[in-house]
Structure formats: C-alpha cells, structure tokens
C-alpha cells in the first residue's frame, strides 16, 4: 500500500467550491533512466487518477513520466451535499489504490 496524504476541508457550505489536495508515495520511474547496472529501468508510473463524489467522477487526470515522484495533485469541486469522496490511483504493474474521505456540507 502506498502512503497517501489527502487534504479535504472538514466542512463546506452548500455550493462552495473546495480545493482537494492529494499526495501519494510512488517512485514514478520514468522508463528512461539507466539503473546501477547501466541498463534502462522499466517504466513504473501511476497512469490515472480519479476523484469520485458519491460514485460520480468529478475529476480525472492522465499522468505521464513527466509527473514528479510522489505525485501531488490539487483540484477543485463544488460541494453540493454531504457525501463520500473516493480517490483512485491506477498505474503500471497492476498498481491500484483507493482512499476515501467524507465531505460534510453544512
């Protein structure tokens, strides 16, 4: 399991636009670097990140080797109701991780 740091406001007013910040530990090996033995190391990156709000996709990003190690991504969404935010990272070598957080709308 990769470590993640997800920052979601504890509460938001209905209709407010909130900023979500995510950080996940991952080497994002580019597939372009030689290793200690001089041979190119195989690519191993996260290729896709999705944020769902009660199951509905509200933000998605395709990632490439140009994303820095330990990917950091912030984006916004409009808070409409108290619900569950799911964060899904997928990548090479079957990498898949899901985290959830509750967004409470007042």
């Amino acid at each position, binding site marked *: 399991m990769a470590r993640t740091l997800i920052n979601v406001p504890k509460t938001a007013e209905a209709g407010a*636009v*909130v*900023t979500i910040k995510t950080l996940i530990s991952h080497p994002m090996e*580019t597939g*372009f*670097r*030689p290793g200690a033995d001089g041979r*190119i190391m195989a690519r191993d990156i996260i290729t896709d990140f999705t944020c769902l*709000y009660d199951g*509905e*996709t*509200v*933000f*998605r*990003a*395709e*990632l*490439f*080797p*140009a*994303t*820095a*190690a330990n*990917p*950091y*991504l*912030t*984006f*916004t*969404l*409009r808070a409409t109701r108290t619900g569950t935010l799911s964060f899904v990272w997928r990548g090479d070598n079957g990498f898949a991780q899901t985290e959830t957080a509750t967004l409470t709308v007042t």
Partner: protein
Amino acid sequence: MILDEPHRPSRRGVLALGTGTLAVVALRPVAAEAATRTESTAEAIRRFAGDAEIRPGRIHLDLPPLVENGNAVTITVTVDSPMSPEDHVRRIAVFNDRNPQPNVITAHLGPLSGRAALTTRIRLADTQRITAIAETSDGRYWSTTADAIVTLAACLEG
C-alpha cells in the same frame, strides 16, 4: 560568483572556487539524454486537439522561471470559465518540449469542478518551454506557454 554555468548535463567542469581553491564537480544528467523522443510536441498536441484551431487566451500557466532541480517543479494551470453546465472547461493538457516524452498531464473537468484549476509537480529534464491547452465545452481550444530555466546542482550524488 558564477564561475561556470553548466547548462548541459553530463559534463565534468573544473570550477575555480575562490583563491587557491579548486573544485572538480561531476555533473550527471537529470534524465537520460540517450532516450529518443517518442513523439514530437506538435504531434502530441494534435493528438489532443485534432485539427481544431488553438488560440491564445483564457488559460494561465504558473511555473517558477528559475528551477533549482527539475525533478519536482510545481505548476498551476487555471482557465477563465464560469464552469457552468453550458460553459465549462472539459480538458486541460500540459506539454513539454525537451523531456523524452511530450505529455505532462491531461486533466478532465466539468461543471462539478466549480473552478478550472489544478496544481501538480512535474519533471523538467532541461531548460524548456511548457505549453498548456484547455478545451472548452464549445469545442474551442485555448493555449498559453511559459519558459523555465533549469539550473543544475553542482554536487549531484554519484
């Protein structure tokens, strides 16, 4: 006092450091130079936008002009848009022109996003130009560019 300006990696520079002091520093590439580009930036942009006209405006790209280490450079992209069901940003894509591969990130947004804004950290293998392009819900494309100068640390781990 800049005694040597290593704009290109994988070079050994002999740097004079003050009177009577000498430092020899090995410079290694941030990314493998040998890697050939898989696709040109123009091709990658056409794959994103098709034949549509790409015009300047509405999109903003913030990145530091001087980068101390190209391994993690914070960039922020914003687009002027009401983000309403009728008028919003559908996609934002960022491209580089000197990394081994031209794509940086492609984000999918919509009215639920509230704002068209994203921040991430990217790799820059070298001093280069970054291009950000937004597709709005009317099918139009908007672009902007920003340049970053990547300096290299003198003492890289080797």
